[in-house]
């Protein structure tokens, strides 16, 4: 167990090392570009270690525009992006997993074709275009959904966790649950658009996994034993069809995040995408390495967490625990 953890963490450390070198390189390029005088020749290795020390003490510099600490601001914005991704993931899982299972069960039937056609259309549509189109929807329905911003400006919600769905619950004495509902209403459209892509992906993965399971010998055995189809599906197939989807989804994480960042710009949400976009537009280039470190750091930690979780929940992978 211990050696497994060390091996995983080792990988994390090496990747993080490469990332910090990259961030350091970007940071220096910006500095040199902005220096009016000729740069003083200095030892880059010493500078790098100073930079690393700053990173470890959670200091990645301040915004050139408003002198706020970049890490804190970046994380606040990133929390908002994660919230969007999480809501979209939840939303698409609820829709896509049953659809995928159905398609897998009734493989090569009309139902399967219908579901897969919809999924592939979802995969093919460019996400920013869907965003713009979805932004038009409320005006067709008569303005019942907000299309712009994180939440209504009426509510002054102080940042506690950065996750607005949680933060709005802290202000219930002042606004009741209205702030929370307002946030939910603002999330519906962007989350639905992000789900478009996710649904397609999850349907495809679930269908494949379900097909594989239904073809396997133990299911055949179960049929031979004379179990009903319902029992086979719910007792034997589902348990084994769902876990393989999780590591597959992990690979999609960076795609989901970059789609979320695009959608933020379309819907004017205050996430890390808009933050980076605006910072670059106004010449605050130091946000770039900060944003890169936050996003890549998250993906790194998250993938390793998933891997550890997989080992815990999936018997097949547990073998790697004992490998030397």
């Amino acid at each position, binding site marked *: 167990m211990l050696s497994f953890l060390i091996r995983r963490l080792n990988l994390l450390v090496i990747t993080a090392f490469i990332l910090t070198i990259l961030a350091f390189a970007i940071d220096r390029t910006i500095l040199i570009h902005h220096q009016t005088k000729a740069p003083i020749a200095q030892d880059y290795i010493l500078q790098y270690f100073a930079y690393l020390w700053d990173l470890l003490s959670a200091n990645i510099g301040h915004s050139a*525009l408003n002198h*706020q600490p970049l890490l804190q601001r970046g994380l606040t914005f990133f929390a908002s992006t994660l919230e969007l991704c999480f809501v979209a993931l939840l939303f698409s899982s609820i829709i896509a997993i049953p659809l995928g299972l159905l398609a897998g069960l009734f493989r090569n039937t009309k139902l399967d074709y219908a579901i897969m056609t919809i999924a592939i259309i979802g995969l093919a549509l460019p996400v920013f275009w869907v965003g713009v189109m979805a932004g038009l929807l409320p005006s067709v329905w008569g303005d019942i959904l907000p299309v*712009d911003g994180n939440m209504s400006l009426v*509510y002054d919600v102080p940042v506690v966790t950065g996750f607005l769905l949680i933060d709005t619950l802290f202000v219930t004495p002042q606004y009741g649950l209205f702030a929370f509902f*307002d946030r939910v*209403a603002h999330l519906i459209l962007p989350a639905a658009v992000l789900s478009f892509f996710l649904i397609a992906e999850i349907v495809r993965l679930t269908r494949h996994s379900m097909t594989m399971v239904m073809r396997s010998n133990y299911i055949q055995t179960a049929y031979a034993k004379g179990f009903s189809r319902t029992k086979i599906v719910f007792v034997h197939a589902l348990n084994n069809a769902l876990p393989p989807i999780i590591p597959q989804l992990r690979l999609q994480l960076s795609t989901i995040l970059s789609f979320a960042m695009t959608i933020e710009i379309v819907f*004017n949400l205050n996430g890390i995408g808009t933050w980076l976009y605006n910072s670059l537009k106004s010449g605050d280039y130091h946000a770039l390495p900060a944003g890169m470190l936050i996003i890549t750091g998250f993906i790194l930690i998250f993938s390793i967490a998933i891997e550890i979780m997989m080992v815990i929940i999936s018997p097949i992978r547990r073998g790697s625990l004992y490998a030397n």
Partner: protein
Amino acid sequence: MRLICLLSLIATLSGCYQNKTLTQNTLIYCTDSQPTSFNPQISDDIASLDATTHQLFSRLVKIDPNTNEFIPDLATSWQQSEDKLRYRFTLRENVSFHQTDYFTPSRYFNADDVLFSFNRMFDHQHPYHIINNKTVNYFYNHPFTELLSSINKIDDHTVEFVLSKPDVTLLANLAAHYAVIHSAEYAEQLMTQGQPEQIDFKPIGTGPFSFKSYDSNGTIRYQKNQQYWHSLGNIDDLIFFTNPSATKRYAKLLSGECDAISYPAASQLETISQNKNISLNSKSTANISLLAFNTKAEKVAAPQIRRALAKAIDTETILQAVYFQSATQTDTLLSKQSWALKPRFNETLFNPEQAKKELITAQYDFSQTLQIVLPDGANVFNPNFHKTAELIQANLLAIGVQSKIVSVNDNGLQEHLNRGDYDMYLTGINVHIKDPDSIFRPLLSCHSTPETGNTSYWCDAKTQALLDKSLTESNFAQRIRNYYQIQDQIQEQRPYLPIAHVLRLDAIAKTILNVEVNPLTGINFQNAIKQDLN
């Protein structure tokens, strides 16, 4: 089935996410750009004025919007001395400064605050004079250096302004946006805390709203000043929100997420004016959109070439295609209302054939390519810089002049201008007081840089002498004659081609009443009332 569930969920949510009692006393104004500071003494861009002058501060006197007379604000009355050199102001008593989480006033407003506010601009030795005053800001101390010799405190509620020479513009200057009153006590507190620069970013004033917070996404929150000495509307929370996209602002106005928006898209004005729930407020200003010829650039250095090029450009088409109804056509830098406007130059400007002939006589090299530089995107001077540039390019091509459009984004623009690497530049200028000097000096003075407005790099001894002479000229008729001469010179030398005088436009929901818009000092929400939505 799922779709039905989803739709019914959305319907339920949308029913309860808008809380009427909360929105009732909140007014949201969606603007196109963020303020550069919260002190109109040092910032004179429209966004800063809108966010500060009338909301946070009071002045000694103000101008009645209906009668155009000077009426008391923080001064209750004033007398002029016999020799017309001294103005004595009696100050209002029991006026409290804002109480916020960063400052609690211990005393009422008095003469010390007046002295502090004006000495900061006027007195170069004042400890606050250099704070946040990075460049030699022309607007910062110009109005009062020429005008005043000293300001004296007579007693706690009487101050005396001593003029250097008789001048009637004192009251007009005191009613301008830069004559706001700050708290001297707050300034002292900041000085002891060692962060005097905060005075311009965490403001304390005596205005109808107090500053609550500003986040860099562009949301400014104000709270009603409960101690305000004058009557107030029913707005408790005032929120400014910045969104550079005019279409998004309009969408938010329609959905009720904004109560008023600044500068709706020029192309949407007709649709907006037909909407029964929205009133469109337009005010003529002296703000002007113009094309600067870089007089230091070799290709357009000769005045006859600049004159000819100006004749080739059809400003009327630009107006129709780009500005729609958001601007009025002009061929002069001064607005039609200005007293210094020279009645008329008789020649019509647009004349491509003549332009071509003149270029040939001036031996213009038709094989070279002119560079037209413009900011990317849009601002209050121009709804669409690129389209304007394309029209100019087409006009120039019609007489055989090649040109290239270079659009530069905000952070590269200043550098580009300072390099002087352009032949023509599309820009505009804000005008803050009704004095011709306030438009001619930034555009034409040798001391003015491209940053402060002189994008044509114009520097001419004669113009400079006229400018300086007119400022101190006591004979009004002579002053007018000087300005006529300057206008003749512009016509002759053509450093600038005026395109349009832009209108100040705001679209306001019909539920909001009593919003006053002053084209010089900004928008005023003091008396704003939000009517019942039902």
